[in-house]
């Protein structure tokens, strides 16, 4: 039931110490509380609910970068190279889930399109975002054969070793009423649906513009082109390979839903999250 960062025991001890008048005690405690909140970039004490989700990726990043954690922790396999470079310069890494109430899903023959909006207003003005990645999870399609070790993901011969999907990531920069959103391509990738893994896409240009105020945040559009059989029919079960919708599997959704990760620096101190570890 604590409502402040200063523990109640400490607060009471100071108030009852008689060193200050009650008014001055309250004033000093208030200033100290503000100092603590500012230190953590908070406006009030967090009171997370039991439903609060901590993405495993953030835990992995903590273990990898932490100066006080397990130094043998390796770089997460699904971490993009651009993200690794960004993390070496950042002292603040944030993760965001999209606003489900604002998602828009459309499914046409051979293509699934999903719009995601991420609320980034909690990023303080003084924090400079240098990089951002959009992480999308894809589930192995049941019945798809595991590709041989020397298979490449951009092989179009999907019949023997799973289908090939193309994932396009767009920034939505305009949303005219009643019409298709205006979008520009940020990143694209061919993937094979015989594997389960996270895909990391570089969305730095869009997020940097939004957080610096040079562009308005209309969100992203994720477009997945599914493999087609001969004759144009979509292969059964392939459309669920890329996890863009809760309806596919509710239980795993909290940890499998798309994740936006930002890398930034608030200008306080020179050490990045990674360099702090090297100093120790």
């Amino acid at each position, binding site marked *: 039931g604590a409502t402040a960062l200063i523990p109640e025991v400490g607060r009471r001890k100071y108030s009852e110490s008689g060193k200050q008048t009650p008014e001055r005690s309250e004033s000093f405690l208030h200033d100290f509380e503000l100092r603590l909140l500012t230190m953590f970039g908070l406006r009030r004490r967090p009171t997370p609910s039991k439903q609060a989700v901590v993405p495993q990726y*953030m835990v992995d990043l903590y273990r990898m970068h932490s*100066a006080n954690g397990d130094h043998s922790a390796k770089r997460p396999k699904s971490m993009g190279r651009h993200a690794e470079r960004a993390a070496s310069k950042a002292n603040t890494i944030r993760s965001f889930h999209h606003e489900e109430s604002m998602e828009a899903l459309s499914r046409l023959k051979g293509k699934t399109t999903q719009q995601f909006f991420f609320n980034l207003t909690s990023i303080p003005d003084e924090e400079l975002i240098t990089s951002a990645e959009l992480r999308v999870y894809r589930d192995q399609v049941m019945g798809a054969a595991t590709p041989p070790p020397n298979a490449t993901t951009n092989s179009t011969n999907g019949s023997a070793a799973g289908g090939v999907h193309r994932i396009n990531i767009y920034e939505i920069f305009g949303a005219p009423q009643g019409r298709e959103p205006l979008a520009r391509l940020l990143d694209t990738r061919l993937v094979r649906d015989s594997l389960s893994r996270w895909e990391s896409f570089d969305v730095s240009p869009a997020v940097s513009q939004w957080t610096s105020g040079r562009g308005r945040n209309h969100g992203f559009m994720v477009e997945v082109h599914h493999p087609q059989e001969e004759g144009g029919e979509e292969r059964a079960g392939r459309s669920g390979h890329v996890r863009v919708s809760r309806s596919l599997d509710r239980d795993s959704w909290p940890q499998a839903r798309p994740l936006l990760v930002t890398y930034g620096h608030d200008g306080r101190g020179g050490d990045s999250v990674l360099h702090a570890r090297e100093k120790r």
Partner: protein
Amino acid sequence: QAALRKQRRKHHQHKASCKRHALYVDFSDVGWNEWIVAPPGYHAFYCQGECPFPLADHLNSTNHAIVQTLVNSVNSNIPRACCVPTDLSPISLLYLDEYEKVILKNYQDMVVEGCGCR
């Protein structure tokens, strides 16, 4: 004799030179474990001890601290130099903010690496 030895040891500890001491900050003690995901606590250390005249080299003093200690030796109204952290290092914290957003952040000056007389 045992009592005398114990008394001398206590006196010695009270007069121990400025140095770093162990301190583990457990976030559950201050009620922060609800919103700090990792770590559960950390080794912060603290500085305590005397800065006696004459100051030894290993006490990592500034010129001012040396001069102040010298003046203290002839005028006890001027206090001795204080044993304080002289080198600090950061730690990373993984926590939830008030909107339940997850943040991994590096915090400067959280761990005492060295103490000295200043």
